[in-house]
C-alpha cells in the first residue's frame, strides 16, 4: 500500500509538471490552432538557460529565475515571428512538421552549448523531507505542486478578467469575428507563444531542481499529448486535470506492471496506451469542444 501511495505522490509531482507543459500547449492550440511538437524543447531551453545563469554566471537563483522568464518572453516572440508567422493558412501537416523541425534545431543547439550529460542545479530548497501521512516527501515536490496550482489560478483569472485574456478567448472562438472587432490577431498569436514559452520554462526550472537536466528533456513534450487529449485539446482545466491524471496513471500502472507482471519500463508506454483508448472512446477529451465529426 505504501508503495502505491509513494507512486501516487510521485505521479502528482510529475503530473503537475505535465500540466504546466500542457498549459503552454493548450494556450497555443486554443489561440492559433497550431499543434506544437516543440513544447518539450521549450521546457528544455528554459531549464538550460536558468542553469547557465545560476551555475556558469553565478547569479543568485531567484534573479536567474526572473531573467529566465524574461528570456522566455523574447524567445517565444522570436519563434512566433520567424517560424510560425509564415505558416498561417498552410495545411496542418506543414505546421506540424515545422514545429518538429524547430524541436530538432533547439535540441541540437542545446547539445552544442551544453553537451549531453546530466547537469544538476544547486540546492535551493532544504533537503530535509517533510512527512505527509507518514511518507517522506521532498520540499521540492511540494514547491512544484504549489507553483503549478498557483500558475493555473493566475491563468484562469487572466483569461476571465483581463483585456488580453478576453481577446485571446475571442480569437480562439472565431478569428474573423475577433479581427473585425478590432483585436490584433497577430499580437494575440505572439502573446500565446510568449505565455507558452514562459510556462514551459517554469516547468523546466522545477524539473531541473528535482532531478537535474539533460538534453533528453525534450521527450517530456511527448507526454503532453496523452495529457491534453484526455483533458481536451482546447481546455485549460483539461490541461490541469489531464496532466495530473496522466502523471498518476503512468506511475501507478508502471508500478503495478512491475509488481504483478514483472514488466520493466511499462511506465514509458502506459500513457500512450491510455491515449489510444481515449482517442477511440472520447476524442474530444473530458472538457474539450465537441468538434470531431463522425466520418
Amino acid at each position: 500500500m505504501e508503495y502505491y501511495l509513494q507512486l501516487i505522490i510521485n505521479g502528482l509531482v510529475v503530473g503537475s509538471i505535465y500540466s504546466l507543459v500542457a498549459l503552454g500547449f493548450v494556450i497555443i492550440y486554443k489561440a492559433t490552432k497550431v499543434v506544437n511538437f516543440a513544447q518539450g524543447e521549450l521546457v528544455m531551453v528554459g531549464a538550460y538557460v536558468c542553469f547557465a545563469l545560476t551555475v556558469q554566471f553565478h547569479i543568485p537563483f531567484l534573479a536567474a529565475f526572473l531573467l529566465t522568464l524574461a528570456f522566455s518572453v523574447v524567445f517565444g516572440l522570436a519563434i512566433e515571428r520567424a517560424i510560425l508567422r509564415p505558416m498561417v493558412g498552410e495545411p496542418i501537416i506543414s505546421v506540424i512538421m515545422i514545429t518538429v523541425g524547430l524541436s530538432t534545431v533547439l535540441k541540437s543547439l542545446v547539445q552544442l552549448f551544453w553537451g549531453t550529460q546530466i547537469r544538476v542545479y544547486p540546492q535551493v530548497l532544504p533537503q530535509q523531507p517533510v512527512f505527509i501521512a507518514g511518507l517522506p516527501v521532498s520540499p521540492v515536490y511540494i514547491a512544484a505542486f504549489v507553483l503549478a496550482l498557483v500558475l493555473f489560478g493566475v491563468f484562469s483569472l487572466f483569461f476571465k478578467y483581463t483585456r488580453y485574456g478576453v481577446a485571446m478567448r475571442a480569437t480562439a472562438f472565431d478569428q474573423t469575428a475577433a479581427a473585425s472587432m478590432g483585436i490584433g490577431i497577430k499580437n494575440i498569436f505572439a502573446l500565446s507563444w510568449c505565455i507558452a514559452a514562459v510556462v514551459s520554462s517554469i516547468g523546466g526550472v522545477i524539473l531541473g531542481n528535482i532531478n537535474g537536466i539533460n538534453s533528453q528533456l525534450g521527450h517530456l513534450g511527448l507526454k503532453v499529448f496523452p495529457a491534453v487529449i484526455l483533458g481536451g485539446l482546447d481546455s485549460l482545466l483539461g490541461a490541469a486535470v489531464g496532466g495530473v491524471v496522466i502523471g498518476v496513471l503512468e506511475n501507478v500502472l508502471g508500478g503495478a506492471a512491475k509488481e504483478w507482471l514483472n514488466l520493466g519500463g511499462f511506465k514509458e508506454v502506459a500513457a500512450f496506451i491510455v491515449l489510444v483508448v481515449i482517442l477511440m472512446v472520447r476524442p474530444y477529451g473530458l472538457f474539450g469542444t465537441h468538434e470531431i465529426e463522425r466520418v
Partner: protein
Amino acid sequence: MQTKCGVFFESYREEARLLVGGFQKTRFAAFLLVLLASPWFLNNYHVSVLILINIAVIAAVSLNILTGACGQISLGHGAFVGVGAYAAAYFSFQGVPFLPGLLLAGIVAAVAGACFGIPSLRLKGIYLAISTLAAQLILEYVFLHWEAVTGGSNGMPVDSPSVLGFVFDTDRSMFYLTLIFAVLAVLAASNVMRTRFGRAFVAIRDHHLSAEIVGVDLFRYKLVAFALSSFMAGVAGALWAHYTMYITPEPFGITLSISYLAMIIIGGLGSVQGAVFGAIFITILPEALGYLADGLSGAFPEVSSYLLAAKEGVFGLVLVLFLIFEPEGLNHRWRLFKAYWKLYPFAH
C-alpha cells in the same frame, strides 16, 4: 495528366502509358543505365549510401501513398518499417527463404498498419497524427520488450539474403537487389495513383464528405491506404534488416518516422517523383555534412566537431527552411527548371 503542348493521343493505350514521348523514355533509360553502372565506378562506401537511398525510396514512396495521396498523417511509419525488419529477421531465423520471408514481413507490417489505421475511422488531422504517434511509441516498446521474438535491446542477427542459391553478400549485389525493389515500388505507387484506389485516396484527402457522397467507402479505402503503405514499408524494413545483418530497436524510433515525413514534404507531397527526390536528398544530407566536416577539419579543427554534433540540427533547419521558402518541394523546383529550359532564351 500533365502533358506537353503538341502531344496528342490516338489510342487509349497511348494515353495509359507512364512515360510519354521519346525524350522522356530516353531520359529514364539513361538514368537507369547510369544507376546500373554506378557500383562499378564507386567505392563500397558510396555504394552503401546508394543502398540506403534505395531503401529510403521504398519507404518514402509508401508513406507518400498514405500521407501525400490519402491525406492520413502518419507519425508511425518508422515503426512500421521496424515491424517489417523484425518480421523478416524472425522469419529468416525460423528458416523461411528470403523472398517468401520478404512477402511475409510485408504482410505482418500491413496487418500492424491496418490495426493502427482503425482509429482513422473516427479521427482525422491532428488527432490521427497523435494516434499514429502513440502507435510509434507502443511499437517501439514492443521491439524493446518482446524479447522472445525481437531479442530486446541486444537485437538479433539476420542472414544475407539468398535467391535460388545466389547469396547477396556484397554491397554491389545488394545494390542491385534493393534497386529492383525500389523500381518496383516506384512503379507500383505510380500505378496505384492511376487506379480506382488512387483516385479514391485523393478524393478522401481533398474532401472526405464529398468523397463519401460520390460513393467512396471511407473506412475501407483508408484501411487499404494504411495496409498498402505499411506493406511497402515492411518490405523496405525487411531489405534494411537483410542489408545491415543486425537489427536493434534504436534506428526505428520517432526520428525515422520524422525523416520519412520530411522526405515527402521536401520532395513534394503527393507526387511519386517528389518522394524519390526527397528520399535522395534526406539520405545524402548527413553524408554531405560529414564530407564538409572532413574538409573543414584541416583548417578549423573545432568547426568540424561542431558540424558533426549539429547534423540533426541541420536536418531540422533544412526542414524549416523548406517549409517556409519552398512549401511545394523539390518536385516543384524540378518543374520550374524544366519549364525554364523549354522556354529558354525567353523568360515567359
